């Protein structure tokens, strides 16, 4: 245990990720414990709505603490994403959120066209003409598949699509 604890305090990227994950797990456990206090723990019939959350919170906090004190399962920096990959991931996440949130207002076709037009260059497609073609054809193909063939109503914008 001592060796495990000592080996758990290196400052390599993999160790750092492991420690940050452990702290997040402990934080989540504490948050669940605090939130569980607003619910009844038990009543005449037995356990109440606060029973399971409290014990899950305690278990999460404990497991997070064990995680914090022990080393990660690997120390290979190549298994972690590069800054470039992280930046791309961030763009994709923001684009997905924007597409999802704006879909009701602007319609499926417009939201998806803009989404793919942003995502394709981020993923490595360089030529603007190809990006426009792929985004346009793909968007209309999916719209046709869901709207016409599968009869799923997709949201339409002010322009009617």
């Amino acid at each position, binding site marked *: 245990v001592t060796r*495990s604890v000592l*080996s758990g305090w290196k400052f390599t990227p993999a160790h750092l*990720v*492991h420690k940050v*994950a452990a702290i997040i*797990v402990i934080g*989540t*456990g504490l948050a669940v414990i605090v939130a569980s206090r607003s*619910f*009844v723990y038990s009543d005449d*019939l*037995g*356990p*109440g*709505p606060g029973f*399971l*959350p409290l014990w*899950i919170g305690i*278990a*999460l906090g404990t*497991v*997070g603490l064990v*995680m914090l004190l022990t*080393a*990660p*399962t690997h120390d290979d920096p190549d*298994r972690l*994403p*590069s800054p*470039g*990959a992280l930046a*791309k*991931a961030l763009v*994709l*996440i923001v684009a*997905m*959120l924007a597409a*999802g*949130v704006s*879909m009701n207002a602007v319609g499926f076709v417009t939201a*998806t066209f803009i*989404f*793919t037009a942003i*995502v*394709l*260059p981020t*993923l*490595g*497609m360089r030529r603007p003409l190809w990006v426009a073609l*792929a985004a346009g054809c*793909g*968007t209309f193909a*999916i719209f046709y598949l*869901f709207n016409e063939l*599968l*009869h*799923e*109503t*997709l*949201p339409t914008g002010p322009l009617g699509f």
Partner: protein
Amino acid sequence: LHGLEAAVQPVNLLYALAGCVVGTLVGVLPGLGSTAAIGILLPLTFGREPTTAIIMLAAIYWGSMYGGTITSVLLNVPGEASSAITCLDGHEMARRGRAGPALSIAAIGSFIGGTVATIGLVAIALPLTALALKFGPAEILGLLLMTLALVTGLSGGSPILGFVSMLLGLVVAMVGIDPGAGIPRFTFGRTELLDGVNFIPVVMGMFGVAEVLLNLGEKSASLIPAPSLKSLLPTSRDLRDSAGPVARGTVVGFLLGLVPGLTGVVASVVSYMVERKVSRTPQRFGKGAIEGVAGPETANNAYATGAIVPLFTLGIPGSPSIAVLMGAFTMNGIVPGPFMFVEHTTLIWTVIASMYIANVILLLLNLPLVPLWLLVLRVPRPILYAFILVFCIIGTYTTRNEPFDVVLMVLFGLLGYAFKIADIPVAPFIVTMILGPLIERTARRTLEMSNGHFGVVLDSPLALSFLVAAIGIVVISSFKFAARFKGSAE
């Protein structure tokens, strides 16, 4: 027979065929396994009849399994984890110009494994169901806890990280109206969360979005040319050499599929080890031995059928893809478990019959379509990934026409990405998240029966044995991991 009759209805056959084709199509894409395939393609089943929808999803499940093999053989990149071991000999065969026999033996073995395992499923389903119907809340609770222990302990990596995943799955499962008191819990005032966290955004996020994010830094692997149709046929020696591995793979795969928590990876790896052990020339393994393809691929498919048994008979999903199938059943108003054989008799036998039909379709269809799957692999990655994300967004959105669900999907995509970076297994999270409400309901019903005393679990010998097994699994897997970790550190 009613089930078979319903399964061969033209509309059901058509959806089984479509499921096999699109399932293989997604399975062919590197990194996207059967769970992602079912999740991403779930929207295609919206609005269909429950039987048709489930037949299609089952076909997608089998199709994606076979799709993974094609990528492993031709690209040396496993389409999904359970096909990883096929890379060793399958790709080596392809490099030596024997991609055709590798793919055809994988297809034939998968067909035989799937067929025999379906017969096994039919044989044991009713006795197991009869046993399960006798279970009370304490026994069900014990069984659920044992499943959690299996899924967590056998997830492959650190049991601690497995526990983290399982507990986070339980936290997500607690969101929504409390089953006992009927008050909202952890909903943050959002009406969209009153029914709990919908499993579709979770699956789309953790398997679709997270996989795309993880593949951002990957480079495309070089393709081996497509084998001609004529070269797909195995020689009589290939068939002779594969007979034993196929038979052993079937037994290994089916039996391991019955154990909740074991993944298809375990089945294919165990089968590979068995074949190397029984071979008179083990030195050929890794250098293009057809036994190294036949055994694992058969085991993988037999496992896929075996893993359905706990779901159909006990209502327990043993792996993430089965958990997603369980979610799809629930979405269609069918609660998997022993009562399914009583309340939805025709449907269940139709699904079982269609499992066999899907295997036949895959055997007949997939080999001639290998050139088509290779075309899919030639589509530029940016286009593939961009439209996988679009599919995830539509699939999530169209479930309830709620933009909030897309936000949830992105958040779970981020969580899945973080899990992969921190080496936390996803399987315990998904299984617990889907089983969570049932676990809580059963635990509370059990405790209500005994005025809050846990002793009621100890009074039932069956529940007690499940509990002891659960503790044993956790202790053994922890010790095993500690020994392995200590060994690798030294």
